């Protein structure tokens, strides 16, 4: 039996090992011509990956919150409809959602816009859109938003339901409206439960955003695919791509950990 150690006192050897690997890899990129070329070719994709993920995640958070409110609503219709949505979206692979959005959803949305707004378009008030104006990146972001909104809704719902019932009853007896109660009492307390899994889902989305390469969005994975298929340096290219993803995901995971630790501290004090 080893004596129980105080948390936070251990040297995180796993982190040292990761940092060491990173240093080794950087040395490889600097010293090896192939790796240097690959790095130069895919570097821009990192920004596209982060940009796509950030926008999709922000939208998914907003949509997820709305769905979670519907899931915990008094109105049965809202509950049924939102549960239906969550179950359907959660059960479909992200790649399939992407293709649906790109080749079924987008053309129909454009057709709907042109059909509904036929009159103002005729008068020249509003532009008529072609499917081409609906950028592939936008379609990819929309698909990621829909896919993740279902997962995030469940996280929000769990957080909302974890707030003791007494809290809401107390605020009603103080004369607050339902919306005020949600905004000022329930949500701030739910945030504590919600933030860590939210951070983890953001990290997951960075990895899932690799799927947008299927639509030709110039993200990190797509640039890697393009470079490797013209040079046949598959193994080397995917090494660099994996390394860059790890830099993103591990640094974000560490941020999430730090955030959790700070919240634990503030709870204790």
């Amino acid at each position, binding site marked *: 039996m080893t004596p129980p150690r105080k948390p936070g006192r251990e040297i995180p050897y796993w982190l040292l090992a990761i940092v060491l690997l990173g240093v080794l890899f950087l040395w490889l990129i600097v010293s090896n011509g192939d790796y240097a070329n690959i790095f130069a070719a895919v570097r821009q994709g990192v920004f596209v990956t982060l940009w796509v993920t950030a926008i999709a995640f922000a939208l998914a958070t907003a949509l997820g919150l709305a769905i979670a409110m519907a899931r915990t609503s008094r109105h049965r219709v809202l509950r049924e409809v939102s549960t239906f949505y969550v179950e359907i979206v959660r059960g479909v692979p992200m790649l399939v959602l992407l*293709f649906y959005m790109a*080749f079924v959803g*987008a*053309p129909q949305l454009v057709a709907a816009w042109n059909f509904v707004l036929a009159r103002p378009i005729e008068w020249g008030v509003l532009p008529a859109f*072609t*499917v*081409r104006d609906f950028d*592939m990146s936008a379609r990819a972001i929309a698909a990621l938003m829909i896919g993740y909104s279902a997962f995030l809704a469940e996280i929000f719902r769990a957080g909302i339901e974890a707030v003791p019932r007494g809290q809401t009853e107390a605020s009603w007896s103080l004369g607050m409206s339902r919306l005020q109660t949600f905004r000022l009492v329930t949500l701030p307390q739910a945030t504590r439960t919600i933030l860590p899994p939210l951070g983890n889902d953001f990290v997951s989305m960075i990895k899932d955003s690799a799927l947008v*390469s*299927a*639509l*030709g969005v110039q993200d990190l994975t*797509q640039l890697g*695919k*393009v470079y*490797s*298929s*013209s*040079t*046949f*340096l*598959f*193994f080397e290219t995917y090494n660099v791509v994996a390394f860059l993803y790890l830099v993103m995901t591990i640094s974000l995971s560490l941020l999430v950990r730090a955030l959790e630790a700070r919240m634990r501290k503030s709870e204790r004090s």
Partner: protein
Amino acid sequence: MRLLKTLAFAGLAVIAATASFAADLPDLKGRTIVAVTENAYTPLNFVDPKTGQGIGWEYDAFNEIAKRLNAKVDWKLASWDTMIQAVRDGQFDVGMDGITINDERKKQVAFSDPYMVSQQYMLVRDGENRFTDAKSFGANKDLLVGAQAGTTNFYVAIYSVLDGDEKNPRVKLFETFGASVQALKGGDVDTVLMDQTSANGYIGASPGSFKIVGGPLGTEEFGFILKPGSDLVEPINAAIASMKADGTFDKLNQKWFYEYRAGQ
């Protein structure tokens, strides 16, 4: 009856030709060659809808090569990326998938001599009237082409239709052939390049959706890929030369590019 006779004679002629050539070809003494392809490139290698077996130009050609070299073929399947990496590592002896020969790639794998010059056609939506060939397509800055990274239709689009800049934003890249045709149908791109057989297949599969404009494009040469320094390069090249000389390749072209009906 006459047809049967003709066929029999043709068969005999081929056997005779084979025999006469096989005499000067290297003998691999019954060795097994592990060959790999993807079954995703009609009519070079694809799945026969009736039997579920892999068939196509490359299957026929390589089986014949092996026969002439007195070798057996053990066919394997892999996706494009893994296939090339595995051939590089020596896991498979030879890979084929309509792979374009270029200098950049020669640093990583050994290529056989070319066995085909690809001929790509412009598949367009049925009502297309803004352009009639590669030249008028290239001249109009608004027109877009769909392709897959690193494939023949990508290189032909860049070098024979557009300006030779591989970063040209007028090329929209998709993961699969099907996705680019879907994008063409939906109006995201204005043309997708493909060989005659695939084009006929798509035209036949959804009548009234597509047509071909312009003539054949491209000068991309296809080669088999092997592990760098492989001892199979020379014998395979010898067999390719003999099959070019005796018209076997022409027969295969006739069979797979003109007579075979995809999607039927």
